[in-house]
């Protein structure tokens, strides 16, 4: 049975390998051309065009300038959908608000996984944080951005919960649901502020990043001194980083509540 399965898998994989190789090497008539379509050409041409600033986003990162400038409202709605999902998750777990943190070490038993796992987690955890922060702060210059950085950040607490325990996170690091919710709200409020600021400052549209010919005022500079911040993109990335990272962390904190605690609170 087992041998047959493996043989079947390898055969399927080989077939796929051959087919993909043949198609990609151009045996079929149509392979994706190396030329760029007109829409993509527009973004590539204008997102960092210093000679014609009519359409530019002041960011060399075409993806981020699309996400937060050209189709910024769309990303804003994505963020609100994510916000609603997290809020409904929190609403499901609202019953647990009372305790948590009170439960320390149970009868002196060592919680979490083995020493090897804990030590390697201690090494990896700061690296995850650094990568997340750098992806967020450099989101307007290099690949990455708010959502990517937030989801990378969320892996850190997840690793700590798995390797140490939930109580380590709650008691030692003082990371509570309330703090996560606060961070998340700060992120969302920042996003809304950055979105509304151009309108207050006298621009024509919400989320306007750089000055346009029909709306010459814009509150966001392309750079501050030696730092290139790409107008509003930098702030939106950082705010989204806070919102997504804290949102995911909040979800993991809620999911990792031990089942006995639920039973105790519900009186089962």
């Amino acid at each position: 049975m087992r041998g047959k399965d493996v043989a079947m898998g390898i055969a399927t994989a080989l077939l796929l390998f051959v087919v993909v190789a043949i198609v990609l090497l151009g045996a079929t008539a149509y392979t994706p051309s190396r030329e760029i379509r007109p829409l993509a050409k527009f973004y590539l041409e204008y997102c960092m065009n210093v000679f014609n600033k009519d359409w530019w986003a002041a960011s060399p990162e075409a993806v981020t300038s699309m996400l937060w400038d050209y189709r910024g409202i769309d990303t804003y709605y994505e963020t609100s959908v994510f916000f609603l999902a997290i809020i409904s998750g929190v609403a499901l777990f609202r019953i647990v608000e009372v305790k948590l943190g009170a439960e320390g070490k149970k009868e002196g038993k060592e919680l979490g996984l083995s020493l090897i796992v804990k030590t390697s987690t201690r090494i990896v955890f700061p690296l995850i944080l650094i990568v997340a922060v750098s992806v967020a702060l450099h989101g307007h210059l290099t690949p990455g951005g708010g959502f990517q950085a937030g989801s990378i950040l969320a892996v850190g607490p997840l690793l700590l919960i798995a390797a140490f325990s939930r109580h380590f996170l709650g008691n030692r690091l003082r990371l509570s649901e309330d703090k996560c919710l606060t961070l998340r709200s700060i992120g969302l409020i920042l996003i809304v502020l950055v979105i509304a600021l151009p309108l207050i400052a006298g621009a024509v549209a919400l989320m306007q990043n750089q000055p346009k010919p029909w709306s010459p005022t814009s509150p966001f500079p392309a750079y501050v001194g030696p730092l290139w911040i790409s107008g509003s993109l930098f702030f939106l990335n950082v705010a989204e980083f806070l919102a997504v990272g804290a949102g995911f962390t909040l979800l993991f904190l809620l999911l990792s509540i031990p089942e006995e605690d639920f039973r105790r609170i519900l009186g089962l």
Partner: protein
Amino acid sequence: MILATLIMAFAFTLAALFSYLAIKSKDLVKATVFSAGQSAAFALALFLLMAPDIVLAYVAVAVGIYTALLLYIISKTERYEGDER
């Protein structure tokens, strides 16, 4: 170009193999690990397709968060599927 294409074909092949194993596996924890392997292979392919933005989100979500959520769900039910052990 040819090298990138071949590595891409290898990555997709690996992903197909992992998917097959994940579906066939009766041990759900093993199936989750195979699924994570499939995601890693996809991440390599996406990188070669010149989509580094997607890679950054995909690795964190598909290999880290998704796997952890699945393991959490499995911890609430049984580890072995069916009565075969």
